[in-house]
């Protein structure tokens, strides 16, 4: 039985208040019809014996108190899912926008999903080789990981994400895995959506996209990643796909959350974002992972642009607290034409240590630690040079300066078309480290030095 209510008591921003009706469910999906026939969805965010408060998923412009109707669906918001979604495009709420037919569902799933039982998780271990030296050597991506890109306006994060997608394959696995790419765009420009679309077409992977454009309703942005992840869970845990979810731009998502929260008069926390933003973001990011007994995995690469390039802004800050590391892009490096401009010191992959143990070359972990210390020390020397000039530097200091410029120009910098295997990247790192005397390489084992430190060439 479908309940319909005609007439509204109050409209306030996104919120529509109606008189209470029995048997309504919390979070139930409703269809609101404006007097001019315009339809929009909404959900019940507060039920009491006097009032029901509905949050509309679109602007309430044009609604009135007398003739607007609210139709209760009798269920929470569910998305239709089926194999036919592969290689289709949808808008931010899951309606096809590619002119193709509607999806004939095999299954309907609640967009909010259910929490993964921590006991059920399988610890992610399979490395994804991206062909990018700085990532594979220092902050590698693992199948089932959530590893965001922290970027800024105008930095090449889209390029980096497409590059990862293009080359991604599971390290040393014979049977070539096929990734299913699920793309969720929140408040993005049309150009961006086209950019990704073109790039995805060049990969061999299957793609499903859900796109909420910049001029689509803000509140729909809150649904887009959830719909995309509901689809991801379906394909990973019911159809055994390796799913790679790209979500951009999480900053737009958070701003939408802030806007809605403000319209509900909630007490704001830092920078006006709601106090529950951590839990809200966790309900998205924690949907990545592996589950015992399932072949499929969900790997997430969320992209966010840090307002003012500030890593302490609540959007990157709360994200970093939830995700398993972060890849940070630097405007400084970009300005110096170092591309991809990954700031390795503030970047981190938390799942890497276990995944490289016993799988990649035995010098990998120590070499990585060595690169970090040497690079960080070299940057200190560089700032010292800025103060005391070249005369104040010791011969060793000068070696560090050579190391840092070689490292930035030949290791971090890697043209788009060049793809290096992990072993090639490790060898390259040794070659550059060899600018420094062996006595400086205290974090690698002596047997590694013996095996990998390049011998001086006989000339």
């Amino acid at each position: 039985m479908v309940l319909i209510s005609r007439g509204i008591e109050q409209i306030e921003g996104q919120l529509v208040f109606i008189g209470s009706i029995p048997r309504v469910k919390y979070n139930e999906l409703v269809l609101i019809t404006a007097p001019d026939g315009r339809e929009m969805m909404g959900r019940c965010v507060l039920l009491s014996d006097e009032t029901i408060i509905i949050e509309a998923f679109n602007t309430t412009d044009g609604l009135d108190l007398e003739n607007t109707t609210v139709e209760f669906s009798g269920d929470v918001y569910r998305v239709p899912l089926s194999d036919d979604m592969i290689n289709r495009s949808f808008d931010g709420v899951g309606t096809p926008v590619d002119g193709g037919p509607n999806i004939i569902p095999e299954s309907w799933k609640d967009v909010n999903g259910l929490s993964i039982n921590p006991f059920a998780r399988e610890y992610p271990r399979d490395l994804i080789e991206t062909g990018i030296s700085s990532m594979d050597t220092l902050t590698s991506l693992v199948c089932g990981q959530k590893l965001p890109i922290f970027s800024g306006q105008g930095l090449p994060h889209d390029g980096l994400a497409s590059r990862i997608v293009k080359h991604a394959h599971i390290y040393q696995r014979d049977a070539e895995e096929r990734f299913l790419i699920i793309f969720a765009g929140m408040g993005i420009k049309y150009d961006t959506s086209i950019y990704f679309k073109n790039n995805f077409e060049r990969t061999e992977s299957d793609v499903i996209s859900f796109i909420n454009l910049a001029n689509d309703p803000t509140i729909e942005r809150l649904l887009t990643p959830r719909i995309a992840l509901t689809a991801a869970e379906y394909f990973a845990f019911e159809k055994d796909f390796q799913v790679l979810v790209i979500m951009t731009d999480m900053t737009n998502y958070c701003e939408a959350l802030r806007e809605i929260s403000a319209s509900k008069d909630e007490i704001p926390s830092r920078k006006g974002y709601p106090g529950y933003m951590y839990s809200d973001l966790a309900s998205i990011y924690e949907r990545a992972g592996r589950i015992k007994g399932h072949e499929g995995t969900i790997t997430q690469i969320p992209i966010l642009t840090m307002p003012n390039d500030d890593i302490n802004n609540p959007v990157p800050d709360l994200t970093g607290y939830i995700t398993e590391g972060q890849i940070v892009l630097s405007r400084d490096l970009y300005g110096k034409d170092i591309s991809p401009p990954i700031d390795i010191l503030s970047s981190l992959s938390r799942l890497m240590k276990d995944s490289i143990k016993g799988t990649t070359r035995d010098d990998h972990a120590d070499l990585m630690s060595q690169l970090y210390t040497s690079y960080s020390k070299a940057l200190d020397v560089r700032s010292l040079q800025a103060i005391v000039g070249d005369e104040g530097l010791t011969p060793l200091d000068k070696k560090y300066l050579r190391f840092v410029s070689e490292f930035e120009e030949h290791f971090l910098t890697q043209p788009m078309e060049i793809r290096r295997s992990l072993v090639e990247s490790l060898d390259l790192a040794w070659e550059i480290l060899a600018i420094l005397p062996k006595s400086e390489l205290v974090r690698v084992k002596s047997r590694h030095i013996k095996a990998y430190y390049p011998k001086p060439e006989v000339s």
Partner: protein
Amino acid sequence: MEVGNEQVGNIDLINGPIVHVNGFKAPRIRDLCLIGTFNIPGEIIRLQKKNGSTLAIIQAFEDTNGVHLGDEARCLGYPLSMELGPGLLGSIIDGIQRPLDRYFEHSGGFLTRGLAFPALDRKKYWEFKPIRKKGDMVEPGKILGTVQENSSIVHKIITPVGIKGAIDEIAGNQPLLVTDTACTVRGTDGAKVDLQLFQRWPITLPRPIKSRLLPSIPLISGVRLIDSLFPITKGGCATIPGGFGTGKTVLQHQFAKYCDADIIVYIGCGERGNEMSDILNQFPALEDPRGNPLMDRTILIGNTSNMPVSAREASIFSGITMAEYFRDQGYHVALMADSTSRWAEALREISGRLEELPAEGGYPAYLGKKLASFYERAGYVEILGNPGIRSSISVIGAVSPPGGDFSDPVVQATKRFIKAFWALDPKLAYARQYPAINWIQSYSLYDDDVKEWWMEQDRTWGRYHTLMLKILHEDHELEDLVKLLGADALPIQKQLTIFVADLIKRTFLLQNAFDDTDAYCPPVKQAKMLKMYIKYYKRATELLDSGAPLFKIKELEILPEMARARKDIPNEKPDQIDDIIQKMNAEMNMIRKEMS
């Protein structure tokens, strides 16, 4: 099962996790309820009169999506309580003690709502061994018998609080279910009480003890920066504040793995699911410092960030209640909570829904009081019913301040209840100088308390510990000057300080949590390493005073060996450090000789 005074009411309002129920007869604050047809658990947090009847305001421990207005809710008539008995160790439970492994067996990878499995397995038999006999007088805390819970831990079945009298009957050596009667006691009033193998205790009420004692034994973690510089005692409280990626969780895991407590309670409170599965993967294969499987001494609470917020709020009280139960058996318990900020946020969220007046940072004004009611349950104590037996609960709470800024209200409030402060520093973490504990900002007020213990390991400890801190502080003060002028412009003695400080940082403070040897550094080895570096410093100072050139001291042949001691000297053979010290002394003597 405990029988409460069950009552029925109807749902009047639903606002996220807040549910109003009308019509309970005699509800009490904190009473447990089951809401709607899904049987969602919740607890009463407020009561008020509405139109002549009683309105109970409940916080639900699971999400309320799909719950109907008007549906029935039941008030169970007793507060959220922990089941305390054999079967806790090695288990993983959520914030309100539901067994997550049973959930997995029942419903697979995802958590479904309204499942009610008891925390302790009702079908498992435990071999009970009585240690008292008929006629013995017992009182709270007195041990009635034991159960060998696993290969390492003897679970003591203790007389519950409130029970006093003579044993009327006690089970013999025999297998018992947790719900079986192990003992019947005839109270002083003549009434008989059956005692099961397990008992219940409400999570918000501290379990009573005989008396509090001053702590004097360190809780050894094997982390040099902590044990040797900023120690914590058994029964002490410490906090680890730090931005994301600075190493809070790794440190907490190190404590859980290597610290010398008998029992570990690890609370994953609003953090990552994979960090729980990391522990579940590693611990069964690892051994504690005494050679027992780690999981045998561990209770895991997993209320991860994607799980319900109100259960997150309960989780740390659930954890400390179980910790107290093992303390009351005479065990030293260490509890880790990662992260208390997520707990505080849960508090804030519920408070916001109740439209309470917010204080700083939106947190409720009672944040400090709530934190106190958690940290104050730690301590070094004499327990009830066992004269002279001392045990402890140590608490280590991580705090995750926004933007890594320590002026955060949770950091500040926590500081009032802890005495060891391990401040994590992103700069150190960026350079992979782990553990990234900033040695200038951190402190421990326990260092006097543990001095005596350490002096038994090595008589020089007291002075050398202080001297190492002094060297690091002096080095810090010189930092700006060095940046401006370069180290060579400083007086020779200062140059030595900088050199030694750098050596200490690279070799003593640096510690890789994932290196097989380095991850855990036994106290003797720590004391010897400390001695080695300080001796070097002292000898060098003397030599410089008598005019020796610095470069000779910097180029001792033994230095590389000194630097690699953390990895190269096996943990079982710390005496090898004495040899290094001897060689160092010999070289120093040579320099002296050359001079004269």
